[in-house]
């Protein structure tokens, strides 16, 4: 889901870069009050874990594959401020080290893979978690992927004359990868809860 250079027009990527930079700045400020010193190693390890998860491409249709984003996982474990910082770090490293995602598209990619899915997952999880925890995690993850995909499609369609079939295909394919990611996120959070790691370190879990 990484936008390359040259696909977005400057009228689209410049404002997105501004919005992303401002959001990351606000999150860094808010994280000051929320990030315990002892949590830093866990945030780093989970960030590395998400980075590795993003490398794994699984097939979703003939000739098409996709990867997990991981924003919902970090949002549910650490809360939105720390998750936005972690996901932004991953997206920046992917662009600079791997050439995955363009430099001019960096703001858009931070917006689509860090800001939007993190806050979407956090809001949906917060609204649903009192009903059933696993279902809340799954629905929040699916919503995060769907909104991120909708945002990517919107930036492309604002820049170039792509039509409704492009949007429909994007949403359909990301519905598949969102389903896979929902399953993975439920499994990982379940394992982390059982390990006791999250209860001790983390800030966003219901029993933290």
């Amino acid at each position: 889901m990484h936008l390359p250079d040259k696909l977005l027009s400057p009228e689209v990527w410049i404002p997105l870069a501004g919005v992303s930079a401002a959001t990351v700045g606000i999150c860094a400020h808010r994280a000051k009050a929320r990030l315990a010193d002892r949590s830093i190693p866990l945030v780093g390890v989970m960030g590395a874990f998400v980075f590795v998860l993003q490398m794994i491409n699984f097939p979703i249709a003939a000739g098409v594959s996709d990867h997990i984003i991981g924003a919902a996982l970090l949002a549910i474990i650490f809360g939105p401020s720390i998750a936005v910082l972690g996901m932004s770090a991953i997206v920046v490293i992917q662009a600079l080290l791997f050439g995955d995602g363009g430099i001019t598209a960096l703001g858009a990619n931070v917006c689509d893979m860090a800001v939007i899915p993190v806050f979407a997952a956090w809001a949906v999880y917060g609204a649903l978690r009192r009903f059933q925890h696993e279902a809340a995690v799954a629905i929040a993850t699916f919503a995060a992927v769907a909104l991120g995909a909708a945002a990517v499609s919107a930036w492309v369609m604002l820049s170039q004359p792509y039509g409704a079939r492009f949007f429909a295909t994007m949403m359909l394919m990301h519905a598949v990868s969102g389903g896979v990611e929902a399953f993975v996120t439920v499994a990982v959070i379940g394992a982390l809860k059982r390990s006791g790691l999250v209860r001790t370190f983390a800030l966003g879990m219901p029993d933290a």
Partner: protein
Amino acid sequence: MRKAGHTKALWLVAGLVVILAGVVSYFAGSRPDALEYGVSKYAPGGQRPVTDQQGANVPLPEGAAPVAEHRPFASNAISGIAGAAVTFAVIAAVGFLITRRRNGGEAKPHG
């Protein structure tokens, strides 16, 4: 006692990440992902847009380390582990900077 147990669990997760990075990064694809597929299939006017990324101007293009380009498995394993390590280092550095500002100039252990 509790603390030691959780440090051990954290090391376990870290070890798992390194193993995952080394092994499954082999599946880091050069196949098109959903976005690349969508933008090339529905390109306006039928022309193929530039969906390939910046390519060779980065240290580990498409998740493959050039130092071992004739050994795809090693190449992907190197870039996977390097990427995971850099991610950990960057997040830890940012976290340290944030907490140091809060703690008024020096990192103090959290109560």
